């Protein structure tokens, strides 16, 4: 609220609604502001990487192995070929199978009784993955890809944001299978256009990147506490400054 947003709390609901909410709010967590700035910015960079991996990694894998194998170093290519020697499925079927199994495990682990709740995660993942590889149904490299995608999706702080990334990655897998990098590029283009067209209570979703406004220290990366002087410009707050210019008066004003 001190940042100038409106918060709605209703008796009986555990959630509070904050508005307006823009893209960078969904990739940041409230604990960031209490850490040291360097650590917080490292975590934020990590989360952007996680978002990209969740959305695009399986699509890229399918596109590269189907159309663009020259981008792989020869050693890696031969490792992939070696691991796929005994696999009976084409790559697209393999990846869809493993991705759906992963989503099934995830959904199942929500409703399993808490006594065996933790073991389902281990049993499901390990047994399924290890057994599938030993049976020669999937290749080990694919297990790594699916596991990385899954772990990255857990790194996103907001549940529905992470969910939408999981949801759209299937579209990118199909696009990558269909037309390689061309399909993924066009899919990315439509996705970015969709994201840019959203508005949250009149505020553009991708502010302060597009339209390019002066973020005044409220961009994606955090600035040190003593520098957080302004409220975000898209709020159009009555009082723009949060704290005076020299907040550490004992240090700078003798």
């Amino acid at each position: 609220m001190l940042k100038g947003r409106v918060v709605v709390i209703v008796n009986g609901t555990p959630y509070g609604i904050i508005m307006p909410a823009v893209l960078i709010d969904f990739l940041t967590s409230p604990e960031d502001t209490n850490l040291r700035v360097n650590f917080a910015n490292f975590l934020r960079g990590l989360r952007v990487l996680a978002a990209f991996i969740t959305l695009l990694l399986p699509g890229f894998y399918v596109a590269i192995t189907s159309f663009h194998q020259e981008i792989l170093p020869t050693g890696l290519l031969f490792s992939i070929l070696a691991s796929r020697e005994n696999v009976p499925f084409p790559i697209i079927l393999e990846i869809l199978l493993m991705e759906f199994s992963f989503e099934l495990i995830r959904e199942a682990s929500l409703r399993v009784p808490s006594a065996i709740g933790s073991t389902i995660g281990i049993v499901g993942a390990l047994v399924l993955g290890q057994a599938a590889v030993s049976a020669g149904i999937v290749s080990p490299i694919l297990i790594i890809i699916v596991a990385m995608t899954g772990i990255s999706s857990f790194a996103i702080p907001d549940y529905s944001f992470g969910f939408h990334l999981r949801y759209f990655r299937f579209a990118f897998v199909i696009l990558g299978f269909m037309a390689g990098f061309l399909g993924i590029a066009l899919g990315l283009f439509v996705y970015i256009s969709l994201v840019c067209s959203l508005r949250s209570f009149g505020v553009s979703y991708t502010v302060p990147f597009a339209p390019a406004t002066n973020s005044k220290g409220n961009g994606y990366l955090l600035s040190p506490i003593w520098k957080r002087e302004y409220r975000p410009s898209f709020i159009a707050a009555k009082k723009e400054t949060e704290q005076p210019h020299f907040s550490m008066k004992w240090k700078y004003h003798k």
Partner: protein
Amino acid sequence: MTKSKIGTLEAIMLILSIVVTHTILSLPREVTVNTKSAAIINLIFVSILAIIISYIIVKLLKNFPGSDIIDISEVLGGKALKNIIGGIFIVYFLVTTSILLRNFSESLRIIHYPMTNIIFILFLFIIALCSANRLAFNASLKTNLLIIPFVLVSMVFLFFANMNKFIPERIFPIFGDGLISTFVLGIGNLSSFAGIAFLYFLPPYLKKPEKLKKIAVISTGISAIYLILCVSTLLFMFSFFITTNEITPLYNATRYIEFGSFFQRLESAFLLIWTLAFACYLSIVTKFCMSIFQKLTNIETKKPLIDIFGLLILAIALVPKDYSISSNFETEIYPYLVLGIVFFLSLSILILANLQKRKQKKSA
């Protein structure tokens, strides 16, 4: 109906998008056909010319605040001239965009999809175009703003990654084919600054119209730097004495990048970024065409136009029977189109309108 407003940076990226997408194809090669090793000197000379011309255009547009070239031609010659000019611009944008799309899809097909019919690749582009055009006008501009910097960075990366294969002596002999061919015939290279076409349509959309001068000069400057970077990459890497005409020479340059034995053949990554920029350019041009059409015909919504314009682009892109015809268009006819429409025609309309206004002021 409230018009959506554009910020300064978005306007700059808008003008840049035309230059960027044309350089992906054969523009750098065209630019150097006449000038050979004097290409960089010629480009510096032509960029200075282009900046001066854009400055003149801004000055001429200042007398008609808030109106673009369609409104100005209405003031000059009534509804007839307005319809003619609007029609010329729509046809110009559609035809050049479709032929560009055809060339790009042909090169994609040759490189990656040899067994697919060209119509499917074109259709994919059109589907992406139609889906993106259903969103707000501002969405395309914001997407453009996000993507064009990546293309610029990719070109800088290409330049620096290939630096160890450069032979700096290729810049000599310094005047290439001679002074006449460098400075006089070389003026034809002004057609690479086709981005100025968008400058004529910007004034009604700007949030801060007083920044038009800044937008014009900065965007022309950045396009000049970008062009010089592309052309010098090609000039230093490949010989211009015996030209072997390749499709997409910059793509050829990306095949030489290697960092050790691990990162090699990164050209598909470049193609990804260039396809993104291309899709942005398609969507923006179509949106502008639809706005011009709406201005000419005063229809209420643009929704039905989206699919029509998409299919129109597809139809025009399928007109050339094979690649040689469309690439011929790009290298022979397109420069004259740009010089004629973007520079001569529009400048003369602006000058005539200004003269008319001055006459009216004098007689008043």
